[in-house]
């Protein structure tokens, strides 16, 4: 009859500690699914990537470029584009290599267009490229150039 158990206070403290530990475990586990978040404005930069709208063209012959080819970007959306990452599809090898990864002469603000030379490659008709936008974002206190996921890019075939 006089069996003793833990006091209500100890029980409550134990419950809270267990809940906090479980919460911490779930938080750390779930954080693995959410990539390290850089922020643009008041939300994660991935969300802004969905809203980027741009036109792209890879031009074979441009007089201003040493190898002749260039990439044109026309920003028709409401998100400034810092730069692009260009992947070239290699059908025979079944791979895609990065042939350009960088910024233009300046951030392509909304409504503006810009062009950059593709000096490292030779471009031929029928070549297929995937152009992925890069956005400026804040990661902790640093400003970084965030490359959007490939799904937010545009596939361009040279004519």
């Amino acid at each position: 009859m006089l069996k003793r158990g833990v006091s209500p206070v100890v029980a409550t403290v134990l419950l809270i500690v267990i809940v906090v530990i479980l919460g911490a475990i779930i938080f750390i586990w779930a954080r693995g699914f959410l990539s390290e978040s850089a922020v643009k404005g008041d939300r994660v930069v991935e969300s802004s990537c969905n809203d980027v709208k741009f036109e792209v063209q890879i031009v074979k012959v441009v007089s201003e470029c040493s190898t002749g080819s260039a990439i044109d970007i026309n920003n028709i959306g409401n998100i400034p584009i810092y730069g692009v990452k260009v992947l070239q599809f290699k059908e025979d090898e079944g791979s895609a290599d990065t042939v350009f990864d960088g910024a233009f002469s300046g951030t392509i603000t909304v409504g503006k267009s810009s062009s950059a030379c593709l000096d490292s490659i030779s471009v031929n008709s029928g070549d297929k490229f995937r152009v992925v936008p890069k956005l400026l974002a804040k990661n902790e206190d640093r400003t970084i150039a965030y490359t959007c996921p490939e799904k937010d890019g545009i596939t361009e075939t040279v004519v």
Partner: protein
Amino acid sequence: MVRNLFQLNKNRKAVSLMIGYVLLIAIAIALSTAVFFYLKLYLPSNNPECDVDIKITIDSVFCGTDDDGKAVIKVNVTNRGLFKIDGAFIKIGDVGRTFKTELNPTRDVYDCDDLSDRFLNPGKMFCFTYNVDNPTTLQGNKEISVQPVVFVDNNPVLCSDAVVSKTVVCT
């Protein structure tokens, strides 16, 4: 012995029931606030968008030299949609090229007949003549594109689906 222990246990002091509740509620509120602000970063925001009934047309473009011998580009744009337009990006470039040079950095549009307005009402026409600094770059076939801009909550919003373009021969 057992009785002594029991009495000792009875005399133990702990936090009052009220403080216990306050602590629990405070912890719950603090945790939910933290989770809210953390997850808010991942919520898609309601970005302002252009109405689908915003439409413009390029009525006419002239690219050449005017009566004074200056190289100019004259553009007439009409608002054919159901809403007013607060601005437009007007650009010119080579036919078939995505890269285009901006003609109007201020993005202003206004009614030709009422210059006091800084917007273009439905059915009204905007007409403007742009001076060309380097006429040699504007020779042959060129393409002019116009993209309307509207202000939503005082923020400019580009109408990505309402871009129009027209080919012009520059002489």
